[in-house]
């Protein structure tokens, strides 16, 4: 299979993630969509590594995973506090700051 297909797949995943961020209301799901976008980037890195024949891209993928894990820690902490305060994880409920 041509590596190009993986690039297309990564673009699809990235778009699904980005659209999910805009469309979904639940903060956790929104966050998971962001994770999907990060993984789409990872896929692109690995594909390019394969195309170019060097290892840099694969190394980057590991970095990304670590960073994404850190993001989960911080992100879930914030989402859980918000959920406990408001009894809702909908991002549309957090709407006090505007204009």
């Amino acid at each position, binding site marked *: 299979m041509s590596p190009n297909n993986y690039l297309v797949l990564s673009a699809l995943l990235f778009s699904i993630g980005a659209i999910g961020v805009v469309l979904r209301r639940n903060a956790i799901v929104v966050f998971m969509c962001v994770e999907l976008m990060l993984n789409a980037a990872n896929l692109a890195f690995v594909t390019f590594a394969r195309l170019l024949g060097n290892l840099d891209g694969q190394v980057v993928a590991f970095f990304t995973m670590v960073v994404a894990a850190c993001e989960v820690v911080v992100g879930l902490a914030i989402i859980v506090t918000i959920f406990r305060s408001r009894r809702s994880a909908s*991002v549309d409920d957090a709407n*006090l700051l505007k*204009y």
Partner: protein
Amino acid sequence: MEATHALASGTSSLLVWLIALPALGATILLLAGRRSDKWGHLLATALSGASFVVGLVELFKMLSRDGETRGVSQHLFTWINAGSFNVEAGLLLDQLSICFVLLITGVGTLIHVYSIAYMEHDHDRRRFFSYLNLFIAAMLLLVLGDSFLNLYVGWEGVGLASYLLIGFWNQKPAYATAAKKAFVVNRIGDMGLSFAIMIAFTAFGTVSFQGVANHAGPEHKQIMTWMGLALLLAAAGKSAQFPLQSWLGDAMAGPTPVSALIHAATMVTAGVYLITRSNFVFDSAPTAQLMVVIVGVVTLLFGALIGTAKDDIKKALAASTMSQIGYMVLAAGLGPAGYAFAIMHLLTHGFFKASMFLGAGSVMHGMNDEVDMRKFGRLRLAMPITYITFGLGYLAIIGVPPFSGFFSKDKIIEAAFNAGGPRGWIIGFAALLGAAITAFYMTRVMVLTFFGQKRWADEAHPHESPKLMTAPIIILSIGSIAAGALFAFGSSLQHWLEPVVARGFVEGEPALQPIVVSIMALVAVALGVALAYIKYVRVPVEAVAPTNVSIWTRFARRDLLQDAFNEAVFMRPGQYLTRALSFFDRKVVDGAVNGTGALFGGLSVRVRRVQTGYVRTYALLILVGAALILAAMLAARI
């Protein structure tokens, strides 16, 4: 513009002290606070006087040098030096600035002395004096700066001092509003100055007077025209010229010494200084020059007309200030033929108007702060010194020979007629008409205040003011007698200023012989006085302003609808917009301040609806933004 200046050395480094002394006074008084209440006013007066002495020393040193090397400049420090952008902070003392230095420190010191008595019962007298000193320092910086940028710093400084002093009694809301109005109108003017600086910098890479002057000439006509118009806007804001004149009348809310010093003698004339100092800009931009003339003519008539209807003595004097500055601006717009006369009128006006304002202050002092002239009358008996000095100022302003106003105003009218062609005739007659109206309304002020029967309330006990107040008035009125002849004799001021503003003598045959102009001016003045005599002496004056007056009087009483115009054009639409969009916080949005800003304000309220507060909207914005950037970047390739 003159050749390179001699660099200051030896005692010329006194230049810094001119500014430093009053600045020091302001700092000490502000920092020491209540502790300096006892001696603060004395210190401030002494420092202002010391600055005057330094000015005199500089004058004598200047006299001892030859014409070519009279101007001195002093480099203070390099302010910004970043490759192409290089600004030096420096002072420049030449024949033009020394005139202002002496006027500012001289009149300023006299007004300090006067204020000691005038403000005696005000518990904030120390603060008042610190502001006065601050003003003197800033004004000196304005006239001594050697670049537009340095001038700008002083320009903002005098603005600040002026707001602080107009709003000095800011416990009264009307006064605070007046200060705010002055603030806003001046901001519009200041924008002109900053535009001029930007233009100079972007076009010539320099903002110093010398540097810009080197580029002056027909080859930069376009740039110079824009710069000239921007400078004119600045001058109009500061000098209360049409269409930015509305703040001056309200600025009379400040204590009277302030009106005398800032809003008559010095600060409001800064616009004339700016135009004269930038003569190289205007000389290479005829369009801008014509605009200057138009603004001057319109204002001189406008101010004079307003003056005819004011019953408040200070507002009448303010209107006359506006009108007299109109004369100066007109003269400055006439180019090399007029600069010297603009400055001459500025100096003589500084004397007689300051003395009249102080006289008005003296009247108010004796009359329980009453300002309505209809409640005065027959004060010549109660206040003989004030009466005589005010009378001398009156003779000077209407231009009776041999008082100072005669020489300076006469020269301006003459220069106007000589401007050439139909244009010369139009502005010449406008100036003559202005002189007639001036004679009319000043006679009215004089008659209402000092003649006729007494109309004051029973509880008023008019009395002459203390010596500390009358002495400065007397000195100033001596100036208003003598200054004109001194400057005009043998064209001494013209010769003196020649190195700065280029030749100022009419070549060829003048349109009218000087003697003809003088006679016409005197006839105009006589007509004005006679009319006032018929209206205000033959007919007894009522203590309450009559209401069944002609529509013209009503117009004039309302400042020729200036405020109504401002309100209708700038404020109202803004307010309606504002009300329609109810997000606006009324407390913050004060109509007077924000009227013009409301246009942007309304826009602002609309566009900020994008900020919905929903994370998803924000994410959508980011996504759309990213898509747009991506599309824009790729558009070229696909």
